[in-house]
């Protein structure tokens, strides 16, 4: 029997539910587990803090999701944690995370890379069981189910990047996407209105609902309650369209267990509110990929908003514990304005100079491989809300400077007349300039440059060291037999790649563990052959 989606904002009374499994979070990991557990015949309930994204025809041709109108001002506040204004405690890094049906999959730029081999090797040193070989069936399932394709509709940022890389003899490759017949509106980051990005709310979650799963949106989990080695209750409350409590509560009493998939800030915060902090291990060793950004200004109009945002990259600088991935994207007025760190006439000049003729490239930086570093910590503030204490590791400063230099070189080789570096104060590099000023940027001091992250990982590690381990290798939370943690919070290091494919694959592995531990069959249904779309990576 088909399940349903219940919008918590409209629930007018307190409710108690008794599913077999309660999955917390509907992002990459939550969606996978919802489908696979429903497929195995379990009665599944998914709780999502953010809003539903209903399927309804909009006014534009082909528009499936009327609510997704691509307007940044409206979409960021609806679809992102804290209205896309989440910052690290010191204000130094903007943390963009999804908060809606589908979580991060609803708002990411559709880039699909597998886990780096080098990262998997590091994880094995830390006792994790994953290799590229034993992950292959899960990766294949993800590739075929979504599907993941090589989409060569390159936008102007990608084309300029290819040209600049070619002129520097740098390898530049297609970055596979989970798009299908993309309409090139460029709005992946504010939710695809045409259902052409195969996000959670297009694939995993509707398929789970068809198999009987129930999803509650606008439902914020307060805490898990239990005794000894079991969780017996999930306490939650409903929130309205502006994230305020409606005064209505939800109590879930799952008969088989709880699956935590709230992401690397959400999951630790629920555990901390539940006082399941394992001697203060939960929330520790949280990692991000700090992102440095450049905008090249070109002689011709570029329409930088449109096109597939993220389908071109260079793997050249990815290797190593502090390597970086340079990728290309789309950019929009609000996103641009929020990063300029400029005021007065200069603000408007920069916007008018760089927006119409701009092309963007940015670099995700790998962190987290040094066991002596503390990296980030998820904590609760005085109101019980999560906050991330994070400082840019000193080992990443030079690579961050160098990624800016390299991106500037690529832009200039592609014909840019200047390159905007989001330093404070802003810096423009022109042909013939040296890059000395870039190499002086002190990223360890907040607000010396605009730094973003869209990937948060760790905080609830799988690890062989008993003093670090929060999650066992079978994805159970330490000391709780019916609590599984399946999202990116289990990563012991940052990934060094866009994480959605890895999270999908590990969540499939986790779903298999859950099914086996509960004596139900688990099956991968999309194992047809063919090469995976990442030769050589």
């Amino acid at each position: 029997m088909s399940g349903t989606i219940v919008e918590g904002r409209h629930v007018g009374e307190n409710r108690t539910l008794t599913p077999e499994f309660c999955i917390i979070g509907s992002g990459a990991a939550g969606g996978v587990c919802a489908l696979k557990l429903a497929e195995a015949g379990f009665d599944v309930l998914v709780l999502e803090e953010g809003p539903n994204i209903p399927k309804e025809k909009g006014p534009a041709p082909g528009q499936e999701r009327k609510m997704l109108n691509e307007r940044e001002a409206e979409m960021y506040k609806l679809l992102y944690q804290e209205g896309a204004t989440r910052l690290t405690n010191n204000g130094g890094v903007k943390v963009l995370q999804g908060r809606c049906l589908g979580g991060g999959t609803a708002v990411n730029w559709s880039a699909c890379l597998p886990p780096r081999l080098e990262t998997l090797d590091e994880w094995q040193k830390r006792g994790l069981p994953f290799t590229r070989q034993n992950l292959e069936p899960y990766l294949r399932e993800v590739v075929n189910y979504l599907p993941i394709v090589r989409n060569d509709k390159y936008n102007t940022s990608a084309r300029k990047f290819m040209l600049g890389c070619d002129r520097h003899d740098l390898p530049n490759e297609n970055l596979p996407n989970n798009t299908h017949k993309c309409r090139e509106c460029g709005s992946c980051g504010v939710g695809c209105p045409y259902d052409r990005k195969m996000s959670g709310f297009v694939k995993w979650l509707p398929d789970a609902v068809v198999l009987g799963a129930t999803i509650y949106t606008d439902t914020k989990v307060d805490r898990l309650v239990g005794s000894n080695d079991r969780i017996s209750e999930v306490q939650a409350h409903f929130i309205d369209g502006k994230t305020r409590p409606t005064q209505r509560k939800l109590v879930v009493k799952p008969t088989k267990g709880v699956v935590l998939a709230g992401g690397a800030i959400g999951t630790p915060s629920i555990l901390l509110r539940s006082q399941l902090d394992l001697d203060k291990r939960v929330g520790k060793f949280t990692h991000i990929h700090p992102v440095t950004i450049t905008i090249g200004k070109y002689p011709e109009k570029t329409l930088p908003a449109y096109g597939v945002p993220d389908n071109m990259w260079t793997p050249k600088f990815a290797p190593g514990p502090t390597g970086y991935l340079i990728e290309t994207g789309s950019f929009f007025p609000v996103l641009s304005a929020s990063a300029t760190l400029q005021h007065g006439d200069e603000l408007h000049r920069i916007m008018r100079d760089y927006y119409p003729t701009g092309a963007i490239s940015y670099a995700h930086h790998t962190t987290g491989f040094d066991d002596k570093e503390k990296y980030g910590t998820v904590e609760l503030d005085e109101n019980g809300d999560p906050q991330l204490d994070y400082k840019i590791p000193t080992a990443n400063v030079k690579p961050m400077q160098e990624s800016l230099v390299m991106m500037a070189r690529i832009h200039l080789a592609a014909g840019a007349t200047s390159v905007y570096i989001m330093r404070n104060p802003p810096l423009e590099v022109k042909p013939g300039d040296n890059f000395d000023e870039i190499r002086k940027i002190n990223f360890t001091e907040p607000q010396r440059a605009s730094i973003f992250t869209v990937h948060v990982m760790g905080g609830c590690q799988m690890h062989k060291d008993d003093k670090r381990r929060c999650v066992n290798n079978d994805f159970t939370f330490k000391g709780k037999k019916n609590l599984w943690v399946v999202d990116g919070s289990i990563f012991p290091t940052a990934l060094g790649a866009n994480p959605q494919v890895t999270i999908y694959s590990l969540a499939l592995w986790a779903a298999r563990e859950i099914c086996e531990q509960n004596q139900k069959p688990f099956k991968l249904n999309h194992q047809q052959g063919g090469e995976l779309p990442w030769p050589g990576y």
Partner: protein
Amino acid sequence: MAGLLGILNEIAQPKKRAEVIHGKLENLNDKTALILFAVAEAVLGEKFLLKAPKFIETVDDYLNYQRTAQREQFLTALLLAETRIFNFIVGGHPEGFSHMSLAERQKTLEQLRSSKQQQGRNIYAAFVNVSASTYYASELTWPDLGYPGVSVDHPEILNQPPPIPWRPTDPRPIET
């Protein structure tokens, strides 16, 4: 934080501005709306409301989505900027931010931007980010940027040939 907010709100006496007319507010009040206007004018220039007429209401609504502590930090920063002692320390002007001339306010922003104190730079970033992103969210500013707008309003912009042809014989595989 809430106690400090109350005290700062009590002592704040921002300059009245005829331009600041707003609807019902949920997070800002009459005082913080006036200070926000003074901040935004320093970031965006005079007459910015012509292109972002709902600026105050938009920021006020956005504050709903922030976590409580962060919202309070922003309101505290606004009210702190209106204290004489703050502006005296930052730039030697012993008057509230909203009472300064536009040039003085922009100079204060410049001093916050280059502050050795992290808090000073964070206040600068908060003021600039909120003002600039709210302003450029307004569709009236988009023609200045050559931004045609979103595709759901302009389906004709979809599936057009990209403006810069490149590698027409590119052998890279195409989605099937």
